[in-house]
């Protein structure tokens, strides 16, 4: 649930100038929601206990709405900086389509609905984890860390890492090594993914008073950080292959993906800005591109392993 992904733009109703349903929907950051839905669904499916399909559907819906609610609270709190930055200036509040108080109301109401409904449909732990995720993104990240430290993206990334853990809790009613490792996979992946983007995209976070590592500590330090977090990411990603949700398909894919990602991070670390500018940040752009497929393919491989186990092909 990072701010790295822009939201869907919704045109105001030209006839009336009145905020339409789509403007309120845009408060929920629908594109961020899609990643939340995918990872939560994987967490739910790979869990060892089956879930009734309808309860699974309601659980995923609650997690998606909860994530959207935290997005609305984020837009309410950050309306002042959203107005300054080009990427976010078209969001419903800075664009003048939705009042800040309305966004706060939508965020709080949907938070309450999604948490209570998830509790009724599944269990208290899953609902508690969803409540903590919303709190973490809206309060710890948006209100506290985002404007206070250039490590904001690292700690804030935890909010985006919770969905598979919630999906797992929906099915099992607990947490486990497997769900913690799925959390760690997204948590460790977020910094190199985001900082690779920060190296080649000129952002206006500085104008808005949001500290970014590339600006507060320089681009050399950012390259160090990308390599360091990638080195931490590799054992987590490959380690999942040796748990009950892993298997040979996951392991083979993960080793290949991590070798490629590590090679990319190493190449980015070796370069300086003069070299990067000479080829228009080709390596940094490549690292960002492969980081997108990296996460998708890891979770996709977990789905494949779950399908193989369901078919009776259990290797571990």
């Amino acid at each position: 649930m990072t701010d790295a992904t822009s939201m869907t733009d919704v045109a105001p109703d030209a006839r009336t100038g009145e905020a339409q349903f789509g403007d309120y929907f845009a408060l929920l950051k629908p594109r961020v929601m899609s990643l939340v839905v995918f990872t939560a669904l994987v967490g739910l499916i790979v869990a060892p206990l089956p879930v009734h399909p309808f309860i699974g559907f309601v659980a995923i819906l609650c997690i998606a709405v909860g994530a959207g609610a935290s997005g609305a609270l984020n837009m309410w709190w950050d309306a002042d900086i959203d107005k300054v930055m080009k990427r976010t200036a078209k969001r419903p509040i800075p664009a003048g389509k939705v009042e800040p108080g309305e966004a706060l109301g939508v965020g709080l109401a949907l938070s309450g609905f999604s948490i209570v409904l998830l509790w009724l449909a599944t269990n208290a732990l899953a609902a508690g984890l969803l409540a903590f995720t919303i709190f973490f993104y809206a309060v710890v990240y948006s209100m506290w860390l985002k404007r206070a430290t250039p490590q904001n993206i690292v700690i804030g990334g935890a909010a985006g890492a919770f969905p598979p853990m919630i999906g797992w809790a929906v099915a099992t009613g607990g947490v486990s090594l497997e769900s913690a490792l799925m959390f760690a996979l997204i948590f460790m992946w977020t910094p190199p993914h985001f900082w690779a983007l920060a190296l080649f995209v000129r952002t206006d976070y500085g104008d808005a008073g949001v500290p970014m590592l590339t600006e507060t500590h320089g681009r050399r330090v950012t390259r160090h950080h990308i390599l360091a977090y990638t080195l931490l990411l590799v054992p987590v990603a490959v380690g999942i292959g040796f748990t009950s949700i892993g298997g040979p398909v996951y392991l083979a894919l993960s080793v290949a993906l991590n070798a490629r990602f590590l090679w990319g991070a190493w190449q980015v670390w070796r370069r300086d800005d003069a070299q990067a500018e000479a080829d228009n940040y080709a390596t940094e752009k490549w690292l960002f591109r492969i980081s997108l497929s990296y996460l998708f393919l890891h979770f996709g491989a977990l789905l494949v392993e779950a399908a193989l186990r369901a078919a009776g092909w259990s290797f571990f």
Partner: protein
Amino acid sequence: MAIRVEHELHGRRRGRNTGVGLVLVGLVAIVFGLTVVKVLNLGDIQEFERFDHVARPALEAAATEAEANGGASE
């Protein structure tokens, strides 16, 4: 003054109202669906029939016997 059935606000907010209406219908469907699924997953419904405020001697006798057997085995 003539009463206007359709205020201009209704037209202006038609999209919003339709959206909210659909969301509410969806919520009702979800709560109904959850209720059906939860009830169907309750297992042996006779477990609950003992608490329906009507004397059910057959069920009571079965429950007493089961408790006695359980107690004897401990």
